[in-house]
């Protein structure tokens, strides 16, 4: 088994004016995803949603600046840490990860022995 981080990149404007219905829909989708990880033979080790990039502060060297590290249209909005037996299983799981306003990136976690 290996650990993979699923990074969710989305256009934040999709969530800017969340009407209660849409918000609930997103929550339901993520709850459903948490169940599906196990159904596909993987394990959900953790995960979080992040506050929008308007709340981000970046530090490069000693310089503190307002905003995200890199300005892009689709930004990191949350992540899941999963365990899977190989990349194929990790990809099968990640395909189900909700990201209606963007997509996800799958990265293997480095192992130090």
């Amino acid at each position, binding site marked *: 088994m*290996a650990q*993979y981080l699923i990074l969710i990149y989305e256009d934040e404007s999709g969530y800017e004016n969340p009407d209660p219905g849409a918000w609930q829909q997103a929550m339901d989708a993520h709850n459903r995803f948490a169940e599906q990880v196990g159904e596909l033979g993987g394990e959900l080790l953790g995960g979080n949603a992040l506050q929008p990039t308007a709340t981000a502060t970046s530090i490069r060297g000693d310089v503190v600046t307002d905003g995200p590290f890199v300005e892009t249209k689709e930004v990191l909005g949350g992540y899941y840490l999963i365990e*899977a*037996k*190989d*990349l*194929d299983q*990790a*990809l099968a799981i990640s395909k189900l990860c909700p990201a209606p306003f963007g997509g996800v990136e799958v990265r*293997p976690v*480095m*192992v130090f*022995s």
Partner: protein
Amino acid sequence: MSEDTAAVRLAVADAHRREWARVLAATVRVARDLDLAEECVQDAYVSAMDTWLRQGVPANPGAWLTTAAQRRAINAHKRAATLRSKLPLLVIPEASPAAEAAVEGSVEADDIPDDRLRLIFTCCHPALAREAQLALTLRLVCGLTTAEIARAFLISEPTMAARVTRAKKKIAAAGIPYRVPPAEELPDRLDAVLTVVHLVFTTGHAAPTGPALVRADLIERAVDLARTLCALMPDEREALGLLAQLLLHDARRATRVDPAGRLLPLAEQDRSRWDTVQIAEGLRLVRAALRGGRPGRFALQSAIAALYTEAPTYADTDWGQLRDLYDLLLGVWPSPVVALNRAVVVSMLDGPAAALPLVEALAADPRLAAYHYLPATRADLLRRLGRTEEADGAYRAAIALCDNSVEREFLRSRLHTDGPAPGQG
């Protein structure tokens, strides 16, 4: 003695060509590391030269090489057991007991499982970039050296070496499994494999750059790969379609240039010099590929190649049936290149005036922006319509986009007026 040496050298070279993929694929299973497996297989081929000279060439050279390479891998692991490698081991699902037993020597060498499909699918995994899939397939499955691959794609050896190394690292670090995908993923994954083999062929068939039109070694490797896929997956009609298509295209190889090395279009090729044995095999495969169910893109392409090949003359080609096949092909594979080829067929059926708007509509497709066959086709239609000045403009646009000097020379020969020749060099 020197005669023996020559015979053994030949046997080793033959085993390299025939058995490399099988030996490497079986060794990867034991080594669980692509670099280590390659090293062990190379060592096994070197030691074969020596041992076979003393003991004679074994009855089953592939099995001998596999056992030798696998033993080396096991010993390397024993030596390294104390200082565990930092690199993650290759993920090998459902490791078979037969394979373990074969390594221990308790099973006949013939029972060593054929892992070539695992190797091919791993090299063509969608998590790898297309160019990495190509390089890995030629390196690991075909056994070409990095220098040979670099030469085939006209890039520097260090660049190609870095590409291969990066791809191997990703396979290990990201956990790309060493396996044949399950049935539900097979169609998509097989399509990637067939696309890579087709790309090896087209790189050889109309070398995208350089002085020669054809690179025979790449063509032969592609045909070998397609044959291997058909042997290992005899029920996959798309694999049969690919092999058929390659054989039918390659049957025309000798007639594609004239004695002076100039390109001859299909209409001017000497059909009596096409390879009839290869064509017969290709046509048999086309029939098998089309049997039962809806044909996929490789089966349809092979049927199209069959129609071009079977016609007694270019003019007598069954253009009506060709257009129907192109329509079906566009349905399963909506590629602008297919639409361009269909437009040529329309020009033969309904005349160049009917085809011109189809070609001009395709000019808006950004995927064809650098595709020299688009302006070349447009030029040909304009020439047939007698609009020579516009045709020359289109020929010049095609020449500027074309990197193969043989094709460029052909396009230049079609110019009606001698204007400035762009793209010379």
